[in-house]
């Protein structure tokens, strides 16, 4: 059973054991518009919390995707490089970006759960 946490920059991390699956939220994909390009990190790269993990480019803008917590990249969703539209179609499912081995699971407490993120989104408009 995985738990999901969100950042204020609209990344999510779905946690299963000490592995976290990172992607961008449904709100983020909607705000970006049609995603046309995704750049993923190298496997084995060590990410600092809040450090640049990936790049996502839409017809409107190119944006960084930041690591929600520190960890090491263990797997990336290479399919996104050919079909970036998956990020729009299924951001929380097939549109995931990378899996990281979480350095310190305690750091997850600093992120928002689903309910808190929904409240946070209401404050944005």
């Amino acid at each position, binding site marked *: 059973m995985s738990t999901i946490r969100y950042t204020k920059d609209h990344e999510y991390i779905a946690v299963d054991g000490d592995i976290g699956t990172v992607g961008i939220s449904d709100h983020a994909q909607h705000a970006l518009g*049609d995603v046309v390009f995704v750049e993923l990190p190298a496997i084995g790269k060590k990410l600092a919390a809040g450090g640049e993990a990936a790049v996502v480019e839409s017809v409107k803008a190119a944006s960084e995707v930041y690591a929600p917590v520190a960890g090491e990249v263990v797997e990336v969703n290479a399919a996104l490089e050919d079909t970036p539209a998956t990020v729009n179609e299924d951001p929380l499912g097939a549109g995931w970006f990378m899996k990281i081995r979480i350095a310190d699971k305690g750091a997850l407490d600093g992120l928002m759960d689903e309910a808190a993120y929904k409240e946070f989104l209401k404050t944005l408009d």
Partner: protein
Amino acid sequence: MLNNQGRSTQPAEAHGAARETFTGNRALDIEESLIFDQNRFDTTGVDVDEPAPFSDRLGGMSRASELELPGLSEPEMVRHYVRLSRKNYSIDTGMFPLGSCTMKHNPRLNEKMARLPGFGDVHPLQPQSTVQGALMLMQELSRWLIELTNMSAVALSPKAGAHGELAGMMAIKAAIASRGEDQTRKTVLVPDSAHGTNPATAALIGFDVQSVPAGEDGLVHPAAVKEKLGPHVAAIMLTNPNTCGLFEREIVEIAAAVHEAGGYFYCDGANFNAIVGIARPGDLGVDAMHINLHKTFSTPHGGGGPGSGPVVLSERLAAFAPLPFLAKDGEGLKLVEERDGNQAFGRMTAFQGQMGMYVRALSYILSHGSDGLRQASQDAVLNANYVRACLSDIFSQPFGDRACMHEVLFDETWLKGTHVSTLDFAKALIDEGFHPMTVYFPLVVKGAMLIEPTESESRASLDLFVMAMRDLAFRALRGDEERFAKAPRFSPRARLDETRAARNPVLKWKKREAWAEAAE
């Protein structure tokens, strides 16, 4: 499949209106195909004699297949390019609310001066004794740029704004190295409203980039900068006026804080055209700033180039300016091309830079004079504020209703509740005969519409633009979605599918059959 703009990504439906005439032409608007699709490859428009029998020396490497160049006659080729040129929208056709970033009026006098044989026909490899007039012109332009910015030195050679930016940052890097701090000062601060080239330039030459958030008012505040300063900071890169069209009021305090921490202050001079003759970057504490000659001094741009981006340097950086630079040589001038004895960090270009642009820029400067240059800045700011005042009762401004510099920024808050986005609005403006304004930049503002009318537009021209904007706005608010969803309706092509173009770019011409397969 529908994309986020609610349009089909399938080619047949995305391609525009059905043919209404046999030829596909609309009266004198000729439907023009690619030149490669126009003619046979086995014909030629040129009558060339068959060569006498010969044996090649290609050792069996000679081409086996046809070259596949279209065989057009001279009139066919002339027509092709004239027809294409008629589809252009240019500054000579109508107003560009994208302003100087993309295109502003290029005075014809500049062109006349650049074609004088003494400037137009010189070659960079000529002996310097034969181009003393050209060197004097470079010296005179340098004098003006230094005077207008109150800086110590200028490097003319960089060939575009971003290239000038790179030269300025390399001078900063060289200055830091000369202090023995190149291993410790490795961070460059960049506000999050900066031009994308700023962090790119810093990263390109090995600096780490750290972003500085802007305040609620769209400005960078000294406290936010001071928090990030330290012995690791090499420089800050700030655009002033900034990309939101606002003057960074705390710039003097920010510069002092950066200097106190041992760093340098790079100012992105892209928007210098708003303050020429009014504020001098040297007085504001700037150490280096590039000047886009096309933005501020009316040289051609946007395909008409070439670009030219001289960079001015403060006394602290002057010694590190790149080669070549001008120096006195007896009674005349010479370009110093070698490093012997000086601290130049290297060179940015093979030769001396874009001579033709120097002539145009100086022509603009001399024909305006110092009072005229100041007035051009004032008129640019006045025109932007006129547009702001005429639209601010409908269009929402992200940082409140207050005076802007040479460009006015709106966001899409006012469109909330309609089914019209910033993109739809911009596309509808095309139907009204205007080039759209800058959209979705700066990124810090949601659905940004950035309008720069420039100093060259008359009151009548601004009024027409404003009335077209207001009419479209009323239609959007009334729910006239038809007008926007399919816009532009009257252009040679209906709305293009930007998503599909970005996801599946077709960059190379292929024969029709092969192309059709690739698109599937």
